[in-house]
């Protein structure tokens, strides 16, 4: 077995687990000169006051690796520092909610001792840079969030927003994104059963790719991220680490730009085949009692997974990067901690279970390495080439990360439309509507997605208002949908937020299923602009009101801010992913109108 050779010389915490790292161990830490650190901090996106906080926490200048860790952990993406205050106002509980927001995915009870595990996540920026790989790795990431919790993924959905259909850049992005979603989902063998697509010039330079995965687990066999058990092994599994997707900041740093081409941050490439193996291996290991905690390596890979696992568990963690399976040579600690190589997971194992786990991962041709252990220091300590590279208390990185109540301004109410003159007559207007990019058939998209693999899809795209996917071994099925109308959200973010939730609820209800809970993906512009933060706050308010009114809580979600190009924000887009359950899949209603049926309109126009 690949036991990490622990550099005990520089790891006093190991010799004496009762003590935090003493100053002798610290001596090998190479600190950045203060002025250099200040300059790098700005390049890494830390605000001056945030950097002051770093200095206060450490009581000294940071090392390069430490600075990298602070900058990613305190990034908007990992810390939710602008959005958390608002997200906390969303209703997240109901008798059927097993796990609300805060874990890798939300979990709800769907009866028969089973749970549905689901979440939606964005991959907007990567999909603009490289549409195929950006979308593909987005699907891969959300799948991992779900199977990390012990659920076998049974369905994928997506919510896509592209620039104007006639904008010169749109075609390339649409084509790449759609192929990327299909390429990943089809290969991994999880059916893509639904989604939605809009086109608008506001997305010309900033498409939105939101991917949702739904999985099924035994309600009493859910796996969580909180680490426990001082001394337990921290294990790395999956694919090797390369220099993929390392913080763009690396490039801006003089130290790195002086180096050769190879050091440039590289686009993350998805390997759905490796993911498929990872799913099978994790499912197999999860059937044993070996796992204490498990977390996928998503954004900021090794950093966020190790910090979150140890932080949530209230323990400390010590990592030896020499043991990390590496695809490239000469990687620094900074690069390894920030790498976003795909198809990797971090686990804490029960004592003595390393052999069992290793055999399973090797059976599935995946890397397996013990790369560290849990400590009682409440700190993260990182060793590389025998030197200490980082030593940071965990709480300020995770639970005590910055939190902002940013200024908001309300979106002005638009005057009512009033009388709309009929410009063309009913039939031409209808023709124009059905032909417009937002309403025309999406068949050309779903014809590229395997909607049936798994053998349980009973309503595929185009057949019902929500997709219906059966649950093996039961008569039950899930009803799944994604919804949002960004135009509404621009005009009135509160009503738009409420409408998105209500539409998801209606789409599920229309199939005959009972709506149970939602996940959301909040895509907005720059939160430092009060009008954008105002859109965000109002959308949350509207969503919360609708969730309460409909008994439809939020159990997971994702926030993507700074979606702007040249100062132009996207339309506020709180995409909603809804999940419902129907006791007997046979009873699910589709769209197809039986012959000689009457058309009945319900509700006021």
């Amino acid at each position, binding site marked *: 077995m690949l036991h990490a050779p622990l550099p005990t010389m520089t790891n006093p915490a190991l010799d004496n687990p009762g003590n935090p790292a003493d100053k002798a161990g610290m001596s090998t830490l190479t600190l950045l000169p203060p002025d250099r650190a200040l300059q790098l901090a700005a390049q890494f996106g830390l605000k001056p006051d945030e950097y002051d906080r770093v200095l206060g926490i450490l009581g000294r200048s940071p090392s390069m690796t430490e600075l990298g860790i602070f900058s990613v952990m305190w990034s908007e993406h990992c810390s939710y520092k602008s959005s958390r205050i608002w997200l906390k106002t969303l209703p997240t509980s109901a008798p059927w909610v097993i796990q609300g927001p805060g874990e890798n995915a939300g979990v709800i009870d769907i009866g028969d001792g089973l749970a549905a595990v689901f979440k939606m996540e964005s991959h907007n920026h990567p999909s603009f840079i*490289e549409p195929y790989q950006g979308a593909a790795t987005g699907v891969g990431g959300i799948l991992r969030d779900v199977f990390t919790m012990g659920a076998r993924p049974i369905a994928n959905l997506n919510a896509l927003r592209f620039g104007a259909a006639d904008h010169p850049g749109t075609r390339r992005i649409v084509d790449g994104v759609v192929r990327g979603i299909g390429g990943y989902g089809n290969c991994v063998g999880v059916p893509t059963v639904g989604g939605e697509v809009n086109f608008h010039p506001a997305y010309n330079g900033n498409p939105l790719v939101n991917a949702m995965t739904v999985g099924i687990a035994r309600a009493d066999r859910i796996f969580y991220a909180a680490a426990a058990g001082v001394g337990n092994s921290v294990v790395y599994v999956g694919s090797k680490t390369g220099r993929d997707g390392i913080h763009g900041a690396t490039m801006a740093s003089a130290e790195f730009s002086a180096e050769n081409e190879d050091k440039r941050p590289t686009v993350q490439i*998805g390997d759905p085949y490796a993911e498929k193996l990872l799913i099978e291996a994790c499912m197999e290991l999860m059937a044993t009692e070996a796992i204490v905690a498990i977390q996928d390596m998503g954004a900021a890979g090794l950093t966020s997974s190790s910090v979150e696992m140890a932080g949530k568990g209230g323990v400390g963690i010590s990592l030896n990067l020499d043991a990390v399976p590496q695809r*490239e040579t000469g990687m620094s600690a900074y690069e390894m901690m920030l790498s976003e190589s795909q198809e990797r997971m971090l686990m804490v194992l029960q004592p003595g279970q390393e052999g069992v786990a290793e055999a399973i991962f090797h059976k599935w041709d995946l890397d397996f390495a013990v790369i560290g252990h849990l400590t009682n220091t409440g700190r993260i300590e990182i060793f590389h080439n025998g030197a200490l590279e980082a030593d940071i208390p965990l709480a300020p990185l995770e639970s005590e990360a910055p939190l902002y109540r940013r200024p908001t301004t309300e979106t002005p109410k638009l005057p009512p439309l009033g009388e709309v003159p009929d410009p063309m007559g009913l039939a031409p207007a209808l023709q124009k509507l059905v032909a417009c990019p937002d309403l025309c058939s999406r068949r050309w998209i779903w014809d590229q997605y395997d909607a049936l693999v798994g053998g349980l899809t009973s309503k595929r795209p185009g057949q019902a208002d929500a997709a219906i996917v059966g649950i093996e071994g039961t008569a039950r099925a899930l009803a799944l949908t994604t919804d949002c109308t960004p135009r509404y959200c621009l005009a009135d973010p509160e009503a738009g937020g409420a409408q998105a939730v209500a539409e998801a609820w209606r789409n599920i209800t229309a199939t005959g299923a009972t709506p149970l809970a939602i996940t959301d993906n909040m895509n907005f512009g720059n939160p430092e602009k009060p009008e954008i933060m105002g859109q965000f706050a109002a959308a949350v308010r509207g969503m919360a009101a609708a969730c309460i009114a409909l008994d439809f809580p939020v159990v997971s979600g994702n926030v993507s801010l700074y979606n702007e190009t040249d100062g132009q924000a996207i339309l506020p887009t709180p995409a909603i992913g809804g999940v419902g359950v129907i006791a007997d899949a046979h009873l699910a209603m589709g769209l197809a109108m039986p012959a000689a049926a009457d058309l009945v309109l319900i509700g006021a126009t």
Partner: protein
Amino acid sequence: MKVRVTVMPKTGVLDPQGKAISHALGELGFSGVGEVLTGKVIELDLAETDPEAARSAAEAMARRLLANTVIEAFRVELV
């Protein structure tokens, strides 16, 4: 004029196919196989008869369509 465009993943970019091939060769009993990199070759038959014009046309095609320069590098040869 025949031109060959070879498209390979850029250094550092993951090549899942190469990885799978390297693994498969190992399982088949071929030893000593290290990194495997896979790419594409596109052989073009161009009406152009001037070598330099053909080369620069092929380069334009590679940049425009044949290679994804975000993740791939290409090489043009006259054959």
